[in-house]
């Protein structure tokens, strides 16, 4: 094992935030003195292509880190994208990308596995490979070079990075990493001979997509076919899904960093998947069905996690935490445990991200916030009921006003509202509805306190693969700017309303990659060669680099980003599935255009989207009644009721698998 620490150490006196590069976190697993030769364990380097502060809290990475390190025949270490200053130091002193635990060069690992949470980090992936001394192109890699694997939400359309990766893992990694480790171990023992032969074997593992095993045919601009190069390579790759979250109580040893990170608290995942069916939401679509963690396990993970890390704040994570069947008992349990712990004086703070928009949720937030009223966030997403039916975010104005009333009356003074603009069928009236909602919420606030403020955050909608909106032509940058100025005019004189918006230029670059095909790889490479890294960071982002690269490659932004797709078009990710039938997605797209919302299949009959039937899995929810207090998703007015049982399909799982 060859540590480069002695060469890294002098550089750390020359960079900002050197603690990013030292490891030593509580929960970090320092590798033993294993021999990293052919007989040694399979060495994984888990890489996050953004800064340490953003990457360290990533739960997916922490879970895999622990599961791999529990295996006697594997080790896993971590690495993050070095910030510009460190990057420059490393390049000028020929220090390669290294792991933070043993400071071993990245190229000495058997695999480098990147967690991709968004498209704009793709250039950082190239930067990190290059910094590691690993050829960025798959075809140039020797058998001794590490395997480059990607996973995470943005890996569901890996076509734009097909030339750079050896494989993409679709879906959840807990189980598949064991299969990959086994295969790599065998290959290592046999001396890592032919890379292509190994990749062909790798392509047979369910959930693993090996781009180099597929031929992609274009006719002019059109994609006409994607076909496996060999008959034993599967024609389509399905995502992996863990059937029972209760079997994976990870992380058991959460990482507690030595320097401040974005989510500096304990996180416990209470469920995975979401079937609210918001049509713009890729995370919801690709993680179906809903699998709740048993409440008792949640409690143990929280109390153990707090004890182990010393944190006094916990986040209960999921795509919509208030939907967790046992949210109330769990929350009460944490508060009771917290009272009983010596020395902490009952100060455990509970964080509920992704709140639902209703009074019940606000009541819950009030209970857990320990008197703190730092700010509450709601995401109505669209400005009118009509448009919310199009996107299937079924909350009524009354839900929002009820939530606002409840929040302001319980002491909050600052609310944050998230919206998207550039949604399918959006008219100016819909856009202006955002201003209207904000104005009314602020007025509710002012009836309680003169200090009430409403921060409205507007993002430009980028259609994503594997969603019903994958056929929709994204709004142009100009159109998004126009809509934002409509909103600026409509809100700038309104007391207590502050408008913030996401840069439409960044949405456009995201749009280029998000539904891109393999030809976009050259664009990404060009942007990277021009120095375009850290593209999620405003100070480094320049749209010009992306549009210039598109021109240089003879590709049309309009064709990739702004064009509506046709029903019969072969999409670049046609051979990859998140389990959703294409005709389900198409029907849902048509329903959207007809302003027709659909209910949550957790509590109503199945629409046969494909995931449960196709994978032989089912929802795991502890309660077969929808939560109290809001109309959201149930299509009923529950905003002032208690628990209202759903009359149809009391047992959700019958006849599905």
């Amino acid at each position: 094992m060859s540590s480069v620490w002695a060469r890294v150490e002098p550089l750390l006196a020359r960079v900002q935030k050197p603690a990013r590069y030292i490891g030593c976190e509580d929960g970090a697993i320092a590798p033993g003195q294993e021999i990293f030769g052919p007989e040694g364990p399979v060495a994984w380097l888990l890489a996050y292509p953004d800064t340490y502060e953003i990457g360290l809290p990533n739960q997916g990475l922490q879970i895999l880190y622990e599961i791999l390190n529990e295996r006697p025949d594997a080790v896993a270490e971590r690495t993050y994208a070095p910030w510009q200053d460190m990057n420059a130091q490393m390049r000028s002193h020929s220090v390669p990308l290294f792991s933070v635990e043993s400071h071993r060069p990245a190229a000495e690992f058997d695999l480098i596995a990147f967690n991709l949470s968004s498209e704009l980090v793709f250039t950082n992936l190239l930067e990190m490979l290059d910094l590691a001394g690993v050829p960025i192109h798959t075809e140039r890699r020797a058998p001794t070079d590490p395997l480059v694997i990607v996973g995470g939400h943005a890996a569901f359309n890996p076509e734009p990075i097909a030339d750079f990766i050896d494989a993409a893992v679709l879906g959840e990694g807990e189980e598949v990493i064991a299969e990959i480790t086994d295969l790599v171990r065998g290959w290592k023992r046999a001396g890592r001979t032919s890379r292509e032969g190994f990749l062909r074997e790798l392509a047979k593992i369910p959930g693993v997509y090996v781009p180099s095993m597929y031929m992609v045919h274009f006719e002019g601009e059109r994609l006409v076919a994607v076909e496996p190069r060999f008959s034993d390579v599967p024609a389509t790759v399905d995502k992996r899904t863990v059937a029972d979250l209760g079997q994976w109580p990870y992380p058991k040893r959460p990482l507690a960093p030595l320097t401040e990170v974005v989510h500096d608290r304990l996180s416990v995942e209470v469920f995975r998947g979401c079937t609210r069916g918001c049509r713009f939401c890729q995370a919801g679509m690709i993680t179906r069905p809903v699998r709740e963690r048993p409440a008792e396990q949640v409690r143990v993970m929280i109390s153990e996690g707090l004890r182990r890390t010393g944190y006094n704040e916990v986040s209960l994570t999921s795509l919509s935490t208030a939907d967790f069947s046992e949210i109330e008992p769990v929350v009460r349990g944490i508060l009771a445990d917290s009272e009983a712990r010596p020395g902490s004086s009952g100060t455990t703070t509970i964080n509920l991200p992704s709140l639902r928009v209703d009074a019940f949720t606000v009541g819950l937030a009030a209970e857990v916030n320990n008197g703190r009223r730092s700010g509450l966030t709601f995401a109505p997403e669209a400005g009118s009921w009509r448009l919310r039916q199009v996107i299937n975010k079924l909350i009524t104005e009354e839900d929002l006003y009820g939530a606002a009333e409840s929040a302001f009356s319980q002491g909050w003074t600052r609310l944050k509202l998230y919206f998207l603009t550039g949604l399918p069928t959006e008219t100016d009236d819909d856009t202006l509805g955002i201003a209207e909602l904000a104005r009314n919420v602020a007025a509710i606030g002012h009836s309680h306190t003169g200090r009430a403020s409403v921060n409205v955050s507007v993002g430009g909608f980028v259609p994503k693969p594997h969603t019903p909106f994958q056929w929709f032509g994204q709004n142009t940058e100009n159109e998004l700017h126009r809509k934002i100025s409509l909103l600026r005019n409509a809100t700038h004189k309104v007391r207590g309303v502050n408008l913030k918006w996401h840069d439409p230029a960044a949405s456009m670059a995201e749009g280029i990659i998000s539904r891109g095909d393999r030809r976009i790889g050259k664009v990404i490479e060009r942007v990277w060669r021009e120095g375009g890294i850290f593209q999620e960071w405003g100070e480094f982002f320049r749209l010009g680099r992306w549009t210039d690269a598109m021109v240089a490659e003879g590709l049309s932004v309009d064709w990739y980003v702004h064009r509506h797709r046709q029903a019969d078009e072969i999409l670049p990710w046609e051979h990859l599935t998140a389990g959703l039938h294409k005709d389900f997605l198409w029907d849902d797209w048509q329903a959207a255009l007809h302003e027709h919302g659909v209910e949550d299949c957790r509590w109503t009959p199945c629409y046969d989207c494909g995931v449960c039937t196709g994978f032989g899995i089912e929802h795991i929810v502890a309660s077969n009644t929808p939560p109290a207090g809001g109309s959201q998703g149930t299509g009923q007015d529950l905003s002032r009721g208690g628990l209202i049982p759903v009359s149809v399909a009391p047992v959700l799982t019958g006849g599905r698998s």
Partner: protein
Amino acid sequence: MILRLRSTKLGKIRFVGHRDLGRVWERALRRCGAPVAFTSGFTPRPRISFGLALPMGAESLAEYVDVEMDPAFGELPDPAVILPQLCEFMPDGVDVTGYCIVDRSATSLQEVVTSCTWELWGPEIAADEVARACELIAADTVSVERERKGATRIDDVRPLIIDLQPSSDGLRLIAELATTGRALRPAELAGVAFPGCDRRDVRVLRTHQWVHGDHTETGVSEDSRSPREHSTSYGDSRREVISLPVAVPASTLVVGA
């Protein structure tokens, strides 16, 4: 009551900033179940206060922290139990090496300390350079360019240099620098002591924090291990924040050399 602790900060952990390490202390104390007192208000903070900040990148054998305990939150901990736990919960390189109990009315660490002893060395610093650096003590004035409120000015820092000596192997400069007024930072000293050397390559280790005068509340530790024996030529009223009746072999604590 206040538990005053002395600890080390050695190795990789030297790159963790003062405030960040403060958060790590908070978590470690919480893990011990120590009945730490809290400030009042909606966001209660534990009453933990740190002594003079250590510059980023410097190591130390003598860091101090005051932890206020509140009997209302539970029994006051037995230091013999809690200190080993704290060592375990703090990252590698942070070891608690001494403690004493002081009263709530005690002078704060920031105010009580009047000087610190530092060791400075570097890969490119040879014994003759250390010897030459020690000659600065004979100078009438030592000029250092410093920034103050955005403007650069030349300060005479000679009054802040209390002592300069070579280490026994001659390779380290041992400097006692005053912390009163506008303290002289070790990096600033390095700039004048080793003019040919990039000051970012000069390694810095704080070995002692000293108290002059008679602050009786500093107390005597019952479980202290000496950071490192330090031979000085003058035995005035100066003593360490936590006095050191017991000495341990320096080898158990020396790093970095």
